[in-house]
């Protein structure tokens, strides 16, 4: 089996005069969780639809699990699972009937569907409720069922389009936990789009950031944090003067210094020793109660990238 689950080369898609995806080239390693991040309307769902072979690209090409998306869409859909923005489960049917249908659609026999349903619903804590109609279920439970449905036929690759969107904190945590457990136990590759940067940071081995259909950056979250969100010092206290901020901004190791109420935040150029800067602040007469040294999280990196990227 190839080490690469997805390859796109200059993948482009236009909708009439609008370019939804522009020259996307990337590789998704097999067996990993890959985060595809971007604001609304940035081309994430278009990318998933192209990778599933649901429509053809205007330009470029893509291969999913070795299959060309234009020529072998059927084979791609047979070997992948998808939860596309909405749970996509039939409310009028029971959980068991939903899995029966999607299992039959995947050409599984009845015995295999039952055995697999027991495993998946059991792991997700839904086995006891399998004969209930889904219409009475919470969105979180439906999303769990959608995960079970997508994993039913043991796909090698799973597309998840914002699987925790619209869920409360607890339901999101449950879905994330299920996702991580399933990915680990099944060894499946996951292509995940999300707005939740903490989720991406926690789950993804690598992420790509897209805006206006264009790829901005791709890499391991730690590498992206180091590349796009440098270290910073956060001073908490009183008496930070405008003159101090000006002196800090002129310091060769300081990228930026910003004063907000009782916080003085200094972005550092490199991972240098903070001692000289702490001394500078204290000697200015400010009353420092606490100093924290930290690195930008993925959300801050994302915001930085969105602000940097030309619109």
């Amino acid at each position, binding site marked *: 089996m190839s080490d690469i689950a997805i390859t796109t080369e200059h993948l482009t898609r236009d909708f009439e005069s609008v370019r939804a995806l522009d020259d996307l080239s990337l590789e998704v390693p097999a067996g990993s969780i890959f985060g595809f991040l971007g604001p609304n309307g940035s081309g994430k769902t278009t990318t998933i639809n192209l990778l599933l072979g649901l429509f053809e690209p205007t330009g470029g090409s893509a291969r999913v699990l070795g299959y060309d998306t234009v020529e072998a869409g059927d084979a791609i859909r047979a070997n992948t699972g998808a939860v596309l*923005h909405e749970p996509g489960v039939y409310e009028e049917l029971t959980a068991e009937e939903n899995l029966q249908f999607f299992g039959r*659609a*995947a050409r599984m026999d009845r015995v295999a569907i039952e055995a697999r349903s027991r495993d998946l619903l059991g792991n997700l804590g839904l086995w006891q409720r399998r004969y209930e109609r889904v219409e009475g279920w919470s969105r979180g439970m439906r999303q769990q069922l959608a995960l079970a449905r997508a994993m039913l036929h043991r796909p090698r690759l799973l597309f998840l389009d914002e699987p925790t969107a619209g869920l409360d904190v607890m339901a999101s945590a449950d879905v994330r936990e299920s996702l991580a457990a399933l990915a680990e136990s099944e060894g499946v590759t996951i292509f995940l789009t999300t707005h939740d940067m903490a989720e991406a940071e926690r789950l993804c081995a690598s992420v790509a950031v897209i805006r206006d259909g264009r790829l901005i950056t791709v890499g391991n979250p730690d590498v992206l944090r180091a590349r796009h969100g440098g270290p910073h010092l956060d001073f908490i206290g009183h008496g930070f003067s405008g003159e101090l901020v000006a002196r800090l901004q002129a310091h060769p190791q300081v990228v930026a210094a910003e004063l907000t109420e009782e916080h003085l935040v200094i972005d550092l150029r490199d991972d240098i020793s903070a001692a000289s800067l702490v001394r500078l602040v204290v000697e200015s007469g400010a009353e420092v109660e606490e100093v924290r040294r930290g690195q930008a999280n993925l959300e801050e990196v994302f915001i930085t990238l969105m602000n940097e990227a030309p619109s």
Partner: protein
Amino acid sequence: MIADLRAVIWKEWRSLIHGQNRRQLLIMLASLAFWAVWLPFQTGADWMTDGVISILISVLLPALVVAITVPPAFAGERERKTLATLLATRLPDQAILYGKLIVPVVAGWVAMAAVLLVGLLVANAASWDGSPRFYDPVVIVPDLLIGLLVAVATAAVGVGISLRARRVQDAQQMISMMLMLPAMGLGLLLFILAEMTGGIADAAAQLDGINGWLVALVVIAILVVVDVALLIVAQRRFRRGRLITLL
């Protein structure tokens, strides 16, 4: 393909029974009871020989049942936001399309056949003269075939309308309005025929003089051509690449 078709039919049948249109189906069943019990009870022996009543049943009933049951299968998928997931499965476009068409068509045809069967029993009971009577073959055979072809035509038209409609209810209303057009056309045709022959009774007498089998054969042949054309159009419209952009 057959296994895929069976999977879709299996799901559609369950959705039909348990879906949101259950209330409409119950109303439909109540009206079927009117057609199957009250009318034959009133008409008695004429029920078996009157071609007008049976042709009305074979045209109207399947069309009405299909008009109610087709939209949930297509517009309903979009309204409930399940269509994208369905399209992301390995099911071929044709299996999804025909699987979704077969259930409403069979439901419409079975409803019609059931009304004709129950009507036969009621009419016999109401006008019992010691021996059972049956429909005239020149009436019942074309009725059963025409009912099936009308159901298919309505379903194929319903696909096109349902794919454009935002809601199930919109699609049902639109299909019902579309059904009025052929009915109005038929009425107009009868009116013109009556004008040309000097009255309804004379027109009926003229029609009686024509070979029933020949008329049935011509009507069935026209409906077959119409059905094939409509199914080809429905198949061309029901493509993943097109449907996914409509979401």
